[in-house]
């Protein structure tokens, strides 16, 4: 920047025959006020600005997609001359993701992983963290990283979803039309195959996930009760003696244990999950926001009407995944400023 400013200032000085000028500076670019002041200083050091002026120099700091530009328009005795200098834009430094305020209520979130690729789910396996995305399962243990690829035999559906479950050293990764099974010890190992096998919804409940869509087809098998066909849904959560399904009509549908429809809940998003805690089981749900807006996750106590159990957990972007993990839940949010994906463990905090 300084070199371009000095070069242009010297060219302008020659163009005005080193006569005195009046200088005005305007900034049409993303450069800061400090940069503008520095450019002005360079020009003032190269040009004579003492009266009476023989020319008028209007300096504009501008930009296009690839460069910053300095454009000097010289007005002198009825003539007008335009001189330019430019320098390449450097990639903008990415801002740190805004940190969420510490929750004072039922849910606490703990950031466990961030990456550029969409995170589908995360899971704790002992002292290791497993991260599922469209291409791999990554195992993070301290500074150690191991990854196992997930071969894509066909294009994934848009709004790709996936789920990780772990038990001791065994792990299962569910993706649309694909199931990968493996272990985390002694080394991370994974074998994937095309499969229409159902996904684990909750302990004792499995459901078919549409292989070319972003939803469960509606066929599920719950113990006790057996197989059942319901309308397609995005997510589901057991709620005591009922089940709640976030359906594609934008409503959460409540069913009794006898699979009788018990009504609907509005104003929930399409991702819900059950979470167990010492102070009672809860359902957590996203808001019905768009995918370009910040979202929040709210805990509800299903033993009472759905009044929020506490302030919602705010996120800096939309929630792209929310899954139950027993005593906790996992959530993934896409930062609207950086575009990066962040995975969180949500833990219920009792007594606050």
């Amino acid at each position, binding site marked *: 920047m300084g070199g371009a400013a000095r070069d242009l200032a010297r060219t302008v000085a020659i163009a005005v025959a080193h006569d005195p000028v009046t200088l005005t500076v305007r900034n049409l670019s993303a450069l800061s006020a400090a940069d503008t002041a520095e450019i002005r200083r360079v020009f003032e050091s190269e040009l004579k600005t003492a009266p009476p002026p023989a020319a008028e120099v209007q300096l504009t700091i501008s930009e296009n997609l690839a460069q910053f530009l300095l454009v000097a328009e010289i007005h002198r005795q009825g003539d007008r001359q335009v001189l330019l200098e430019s320098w390449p834009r450097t990639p903008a430094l990415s801002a740190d993701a805004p940190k969420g305020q510490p929750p004072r209520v039922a849910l606490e979130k703990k950031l466990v992983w961030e990456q550029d690729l969409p995170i589908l789910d995360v899971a704790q396996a002992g002292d290791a963290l497993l991260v599922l995305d469209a291409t791999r399962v990554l195992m993070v243990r301290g500074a150690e990283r191991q990854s196992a690829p997930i071969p894509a035999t066909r294009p994934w559906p848009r709004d790709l979803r996936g789920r990780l479950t772990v038990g001791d050293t065994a792990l299962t990764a569910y993706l649309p039309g694909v199931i990968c099974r493996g272990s985390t010890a002694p080394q991370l190992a994974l074998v994937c195959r095309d499969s229409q096998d159902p996904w684990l919804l909750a302990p004792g409940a499995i459901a078919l996930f549409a292989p070319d869509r972003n939803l469960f087809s509606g066929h599920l098998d719950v113990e006790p009760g057996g197989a059942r066909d319901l309308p397609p849904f995005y997510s589901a959560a057991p709620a005591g003696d009922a089940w709640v399904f976030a359906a594609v009509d934008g409503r959460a549908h409540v069913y009794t244990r006898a699979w009788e429809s018990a009504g609907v*809940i509005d104003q929930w998003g399409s991702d819900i999950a059950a979470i167990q805690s010492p102070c009672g089981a809860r359902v957590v749900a996203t808001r019905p926001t768009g995918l*370009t807006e910040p979202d929040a996750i709210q805990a509800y106590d299903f033993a009472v009407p759905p009044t929020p159990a506490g302030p919602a957990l705010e996120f800096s972007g939309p929630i792209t995944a929310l899954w139950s993990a027993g005593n906790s839940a996992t959530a993934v949010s896409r930062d609207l400023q950086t575009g990066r994906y962040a995975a969180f463990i949500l833990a219920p905090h009792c007594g606050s």
Partner: protein
Amino acid sequence: MRLSSWLLIAVLSATARGGAATRPRYGGTLRVEMRAAPAALDPAAADAGPLRSLVYETLVRLDDAGVPQPCLALSWQHDAAVRRWQFNLRPAVKLHDGAPLTAAAVAPSLQAALPAATVAATGDTTLTIRANHPLPGLLLDLAHNGWLDTGPFRSTAFEPARRAAFAANEDYWGGRPFLDAIEVQLGRGLRDQLADLELGKADVVEIAPADLRRASGGGREIWSSADINLIALAFAPAPGSGDASRLREALALSIDRAAMHTVLLQRQGEVSAALLPQWISGYAFAFPTTPDLPRARALLSAVPPAARTLTLAYDPSLRAARSLAERIAVNARDAGLAVQVSVQNPRADVRLMEIRLASLDPAQALGEVAAALDLQAPEASAAPAALYESERQLLDGFRVIPLFQLPVLYGAASRVRVYAPPPVTRLGDWRFDNLWLSGTAP
């Protein structure tokens, strides 16, 4: 007891309108209308416009900063002299006829698009492009040429200038689109489009700047490209006398762009006396836009009174064309120049034109605009100072009088949702594979 609580919830909320879900739904047919009336779905045709982006793709695509990014080619490298390039194709991509995308399949269409180079398949998924001269701008060329039918939608019907239909490409490498189909009505006037949007007969329509406020009611959204449409007056490329030159300059100096921009264009886009918009060149403001009536009158005083006339033609399908043409005539009259306005008169002295920008690269864009206006091809240089000088020379003599740089505006019905923005790129290409429709059965 717990269940009774749930039932209470259900009773309380059952009558309320369903809330919006955050996850997109698959299915449904998007109904689109547009003014352009292409005679064929030819990706190389100038009027192929956004329809092309539904069906066709190139080896590389430009991101919003104009930087080449992988599309059908995953990676590439070139030798030190930039004469030999090697491209590695994206695996597992299928053409719309089901055939795999191989280097052998790609080479012929690339060869046709790059006649000055030699294209050869050097493997199943690798191909080379070489020439006797350096090819530093090859990636830019490939972003605009060598179209292949691998896109997110397949063409299922095309009635020239009337209708086009598309179906989701189930095998699309980027994932099947949410929409099942897109129906496009071609050659539809802007007023009819707006009426159809308001009546719920269309989901996405083009919007005239003057209709912006009306179109954005009722939960509808407005989508906009960057300022990519140059509105300009263009004189016929004939050898001009001194009087003709004075007439052109006088007309240019008489036009009050700011007033038209405020009243007729509802402040959409920007006033401009440059061929390239400010966001592309960075220097457009250096071309003055303010009228200078005293100088215009002085120029006309040197022209015989009987010669102080011009005929101005406009295409009625252009946005606000008639209003702009009539306003230009009023401005000219204030300077002492009689301008007669007519519709699509092939013998008119000057035409009101709309030229759409097709490249994010300033030098390439300037070349394309110059070609569209029958101006001499400018020197190809990426340096802003040289580019400014080229543009200044193109505008010297006032054969072309730029007026405005306008965005393409779309109105979208409330049921249209965007999974991943933008729905329209800076250059106005459609990214409709990321749209979905609320209220659609999965």
